[in-house]
């Protein structure tokens, strides 16, 4: 099973009662899988901060709990995390941080091992699926024994790789109930001052534990080279350097310094192999070992490490690879045919606006040929950055829109919109409401009316929500109606107060049937290529004419609206009818 499936299994076997998360690649499948086991309360939270806070509450109530998020999600949850370190837990609490070295599907590649050190909490790093399962169970025990949250860090290659394991049985955990303890749970300065020394003492006790933990081990080999590593890098290094002596860290913070010294006594040189930052290497250098320590001078701080990189940098072996002189065009990800975002970005580009973007499928609107997004920072940042531009230059609001998806808006777009109203800003926000969390694989959210298990749930009404924040100009447009979108955007940019335009159409993945595909009348097509500018994978250009791929066209009708020569047509009798 995958690392994410194994983490869910570990939580189940370890008696976890409550699972919390907000979707984010590569962490999403953890809660999805955990929700399929009986006896575990799982649901999506609005964002990672609320997910961790709900996890804290469940833990204080005496439940065992797992909170899962991607690396940048931990930034959102960092506020409760830092103080959770002081309060400690009730039932065991494991926080999954799914990092993304190489940025397969992320806006940065921050190294979240620093969070464990920052918060002074234990860090576990599994190197395959079996360890992922085992470490969740071990993490719950460490959490309860040392009264601390535990961070378990995966990377994409752990979360989305499969390896074998034998499932075990669940150990049920009874929720013991909340016991009032203000000195532990009420972090007033007076109480917090009493908790900080406990955190420091806990760190010393944890270091003693890492020295003897079965999660850390020395694998003896040649005395020439000692390798220190953790996570999936262990697998790369083990394959590339079969003869070396290894210190494999699974319980990697606090660093087991006595084990490191033991490794140093066994070898002539230590090479630390770690992705991203020199997290271990700097700690080893601070130890002033008697043998040379190398690492980042060989591997650098960028992206992923691989078996072949280690072979080349350490063993000096570089195989001759197959080379081809042929040009290979790239195959970037694209918005799907029938995507509800395409037409909106086409209009925003035509209007030559500055577009403050956000995180989701619609970030693809930054790529050719639409190239309609001018910034993308983090979840919810579209609203705040557009507001900031308008504050710096009130005229900027006349040519700037913020663009955010429905799930991202509920995650962290509401508070900056409140700022906009409060600041009397003339900014314009477009909520691209496709009724789902699309990019991560179509998860439900508080606006969809359905929960993680597919059961009916309350649904936030975006129009009512925006109005209740004080936005007077709230309008809804059909995301497939280009003229309507254009006119509404122009109108709202002129308005001298905060406005919200909700551009609505369901994600194409939510629909099961489509109208008949459109076709090109070759006699009328002049080859002007205007339709090509939509960047729709269903439209290509052959022999100076546009061609519609019937097998993937979903009859959204955008190209038909754009064609000035009426060359693109709905099948007879279907004109203007688009599927809802």
């Amino acid at each position, binding site marked *: 099973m995958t690392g994410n499936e194994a983490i869910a299994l570990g939580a189940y076997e370890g008696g976890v009662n409550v699972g919390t998360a907000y979707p984010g690649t590569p962490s999403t499948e953890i809660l999805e899988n955990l929700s399929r086991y009986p006896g575990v309360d799982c649901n999506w939270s609005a964002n990672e901060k609320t997910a961790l806070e709900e996890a804290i509450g469940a833990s204080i109530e005496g439940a065992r709990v797992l909170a899962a998020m991607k690396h940048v999600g931990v930034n959102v949850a960092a506020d409760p995390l830092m103080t959770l370190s002081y309060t400690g837990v009730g039932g065991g609490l494991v926080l999954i941080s799914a990092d993304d070295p190489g940025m397969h599907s992320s806006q940065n590649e921050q190294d979240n091992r620093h969070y464990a050190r920052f918060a002074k909490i234990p860090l576990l790093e599994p190197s395959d699926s079996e360890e992922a399962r085992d470490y969740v169970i071990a993490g719950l025990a460490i959490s309860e024994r040392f009264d601390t949250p535990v961070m378990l860090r995966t990377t994409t290659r752990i979360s989305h790789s499969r390896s074998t394991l034998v499932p075990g049985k669940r150990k049920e955990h009874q929720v013991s109930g909340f016991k009032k303890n203000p000195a532990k749970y009420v972090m007033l300065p007076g109480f917090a001052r009493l908790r900080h020394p406990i955190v420091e003492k806990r760190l010393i006790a944890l270091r003693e534990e890492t020295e003897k933990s079965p999660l850390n081990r020395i694998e003896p080999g040649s005395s020439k080279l000692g390798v220190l590593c953790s996570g999936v890098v262990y697998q790369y290094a083990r394959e590339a350097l079969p003869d070396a002596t290894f210190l494999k860290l699974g319980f990697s913070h606090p660093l087991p310094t006595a084990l490191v010294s033991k490794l140093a006594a066994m070898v002539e040189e230590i090479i630390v192999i770690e992705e991203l930052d020199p997290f271990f290497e700097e700690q080893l250098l601070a130890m002033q070992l008697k043998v040379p320590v190398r690492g980042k001078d060989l591997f650098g701080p960028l992206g992923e490490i691989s*078996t072949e990189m280690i072979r080349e940098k350490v063993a000096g072996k570089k195989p001759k690879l197959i080379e081809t002189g042929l040009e290979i065009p790239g195959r970037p*990800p694209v918005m799907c045919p029938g995507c509800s975002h395409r037409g909106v970005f086409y209009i925003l580009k035509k209007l030559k606006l500055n577009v403050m973007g956000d995180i989701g499928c619609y970030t693809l609107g930054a790529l050719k040929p639409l190239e309609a997004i001018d910034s993308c920072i983090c979840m919810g940042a579209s609203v705040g950055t557009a507001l900031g531009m308008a504050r710096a230059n009130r005229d900027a609001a006349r040519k700037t829109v913020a663009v955010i998806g429905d799930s991202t808006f509920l995650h962290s777009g509401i508070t900056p919109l409140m700022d906009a109203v409060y600041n009397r800003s003339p900014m314009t926000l477009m909520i691209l409401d496709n009724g789902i969390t699309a990019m991560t694989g179509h998860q439900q959210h508080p606006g969809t009316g359905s929960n993680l298990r597919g059961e009916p749930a309350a649904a936030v009404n975006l129009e009512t929500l925006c109005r209740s924040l004080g936005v007077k100009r709230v309008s809804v447009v059909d995301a497939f109606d280009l003229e309507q979108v254009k006119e509404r955007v122009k109108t709202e940019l002129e308005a001298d107060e905060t406005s919200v335009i909700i551009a609505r159409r369901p994600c194409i993945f939510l629909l099961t049937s489509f109208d008949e595909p459109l076709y090109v009348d070759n006699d009328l097509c002049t080859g002007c290529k205007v339709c090509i500018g939509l960047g729709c994978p269903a439209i290509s250009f052959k022999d100076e004419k546009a061609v519609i791929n019937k097998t993937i066209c979903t009859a959204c009708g955008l190209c038909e609206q754009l064609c000035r020569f009426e060359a693109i047509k709905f099948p007879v009798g279907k004109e203007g009818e688009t599927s809802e």
Partner: protein
Amino acid sequence: MKQVNKTDILIAGVGGQGTILTGRVIAALAIDEGLDVKTAETHGMAQRGGSVITHVRIGEKVYSPLIPEGDGDILLSFEKMEALRWLPFLSPLGTVIVNTQELEPLPVLTGQAEYTSGILVEIEQKVKRLIAVDALSIEPVSSNPRMVNTFLLGILAHIMPFEKEKWLTVMEQEIKAKLVAINQQSFEAGWQFARQ
């Protein structure tokens, strides 16, 4: 450097073509045969019509889930140009099994680039063995293009050491019940193609 008794299989394609499912079937069978297996998959952003790759590594003991460049034994590609893109991961002694279908990426659709020509000739010169097939011209793939993956799996299965019956059984476990029959039919068609 290469570990013995090991088969490294790369499955290349375009997001949505079923590389993950194909990898899962191969892995499940190898596990049933008592071998160690690891796979690595592409999720997230690249799935939106991007280039995707699944690594499957089978052996007595497998460490890395990723196949090092130049080490691959078999490259199974559901699209022609993707076979060329991932070729450097294959050993020159490796085998390429490719569906000759051309799926044009956006830069080609919009006229910014041209679909590479001469791909099959190039691959044939660089590797030990090339099996190229237009899966869409053969039933049941021609009437159900989503069956490309299991058709190519049938070809792969023919050069793997496991029995055909075991492949069919494992497909029953790994594929949604209502789609098992059509996928097995497609697998059978691929198997028969490889026999000729």
